[in-house]
């Protein structure tokens, strides 16, 4: 056996394209998943028992079923059910937006619940509505505490997006499979791709650790 990276290097632009698509899916899933997660958290915390139970069920359902099953369901099953033209890209965005929103919802909930009841009372006493207290007083403080958990979950999301390759979306994993078949060099291709993922995720993890340290130093507590 001899390592030969020539084939990987000549087609490296394919891998870069895959990397861009990986980042694209991650970013879009975050873009939709975070606000959706906030909505779910607010519904779950709402006083209305039925609404709260429904939100809790959605959250638990998407947290306890495997993301790959969800992806297959949205890609293969949903188009039959509601007659939409489903592309691998759309299925991926839909799946990971909803899947990550369930996790973000729990992070939001933890953050909101960690805020002292007195803060709600302080807002209420100056005439704020529930929504105003939430937006102006509670959320700004909660979000700061959530940052580490939020970053950790985003990194998990980035890793999970490798699943989109199974429905033939051209992310980094898919491009790797493609290139490995074309070049008959799976060892080099998969090793390089593993390193690419490692470099990206390791850098993000370090960043997240640095941020957490800074928050810890400024004396702010965080939630997990």
């Amino acid at each position: 056996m001899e390592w030969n990276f020539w084939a990987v290097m000549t087609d490296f632009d394919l891998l870069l394209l895959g990397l861009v698509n990986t980042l694209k899916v991650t970013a879009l899933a975050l873009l939709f998943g975070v606000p959706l997660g906030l909505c779910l958290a607010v519904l779950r915390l709402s006083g209305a028992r039925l609404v709260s139970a429904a939100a809790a069920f959605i959250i638990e359902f998407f947290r306890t079923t495997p993301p790959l099953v969800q992806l297959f369901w949205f890609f293969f099953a949903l188009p039959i059910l509601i007659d939409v033209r489903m592309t691998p890209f759309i299925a991926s965005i839909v799946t990971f937006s909803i899947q990550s929103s369930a996790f973000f919802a729990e992070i939001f909930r933890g953050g909101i619940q960690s805020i002292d009841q007195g803060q709600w009372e302080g807002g209420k006493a100056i005439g704020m509505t529930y929504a105003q207290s939430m937006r102006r007083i509670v959320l700004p403080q909660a979000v700061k505490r959530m940052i580490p958990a939020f970053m950790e979950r985003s990194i998990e999301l980035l890793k999970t997006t490798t699943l989109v390759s199974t429905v033939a979306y051209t992310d980094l994993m898919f491009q790797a499979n493609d290139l490995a078949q074309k070049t008959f060099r799976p060892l080099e291709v998969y090793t390089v791709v593993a390193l690419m993922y490692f470099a990206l995720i390791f850098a993000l993890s370090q960043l997240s650790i640095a941020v957490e340290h800074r928050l810890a130093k400024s004396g702010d507590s965080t939630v997990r």
Partner: protein
Amino acid sequence: MNAILRIENLHKRFGDLTVLAGIDAAVEAGETVVLLGSSGSGKSTLLRCINFMETPTEGRITLHGRLVGEERGGVMRYRESELCKLRTRIGMVFQHFNLFPHMTVLRNIMEGQVTVLKRGAAEAAAKAREQLARVGLSDKADEYPARLSGGQKQRVAIARALAMDPDMMLFDEVTSALDPELVGEVLKTMRRLTEEGMTMVVVTHELGFAYHVANRVLFLDQGVILEQGEPQQVLKEPATQRMREFLDGHSLFKLPD
């Protein structure tokens, strides 16, 4: 009588626990009323019912001659928007300050003016500085609450409530969480408000404040008003055994001869 606030037959129950069992009281403009009572007597709950931090189980509250909420089928119904508006007219100061830690002192005092009263930023800032000067903390405008002492925090909280131009102020054991040496500065601020003619309802354990500043004291026991009257009379010549026991419990309080 020129009553700002009238409370009729007020009841508050938490599940099986009855905390207020029929309170009738009125507060006149410019009056400072002190609520006394041992813990569990219902005095804080009564205070919190006045601005609907707690919703009364039964009874009516009238502010400036207008009934709060509407009666439907023998039950009072309250709209959230009405209560929010009411709370802008009744300022409240808490035991644990409840300042917003993510905002500077100035921002804390501007927040309600801007978000709730929709005042412009410049107007709100000017008003905030005015109130800060009133509580003697002009130099702290740009500090964050975490950098202040307990007494300073409480004076900021008072300024925050005053900035809304309330008709009336509620004080809920505002000195109980303070170190003894910081109590004075807060009481002094409150006394000045009384002298300026602010209408105030105060829950406190500071009998000295009640004696020297209050126009009237109400003594609560087991959810009802047991005694009331001018402080000189009620504190010096308590009519009931419960009140005497309560006063004996405050051995530090010496009535001036």
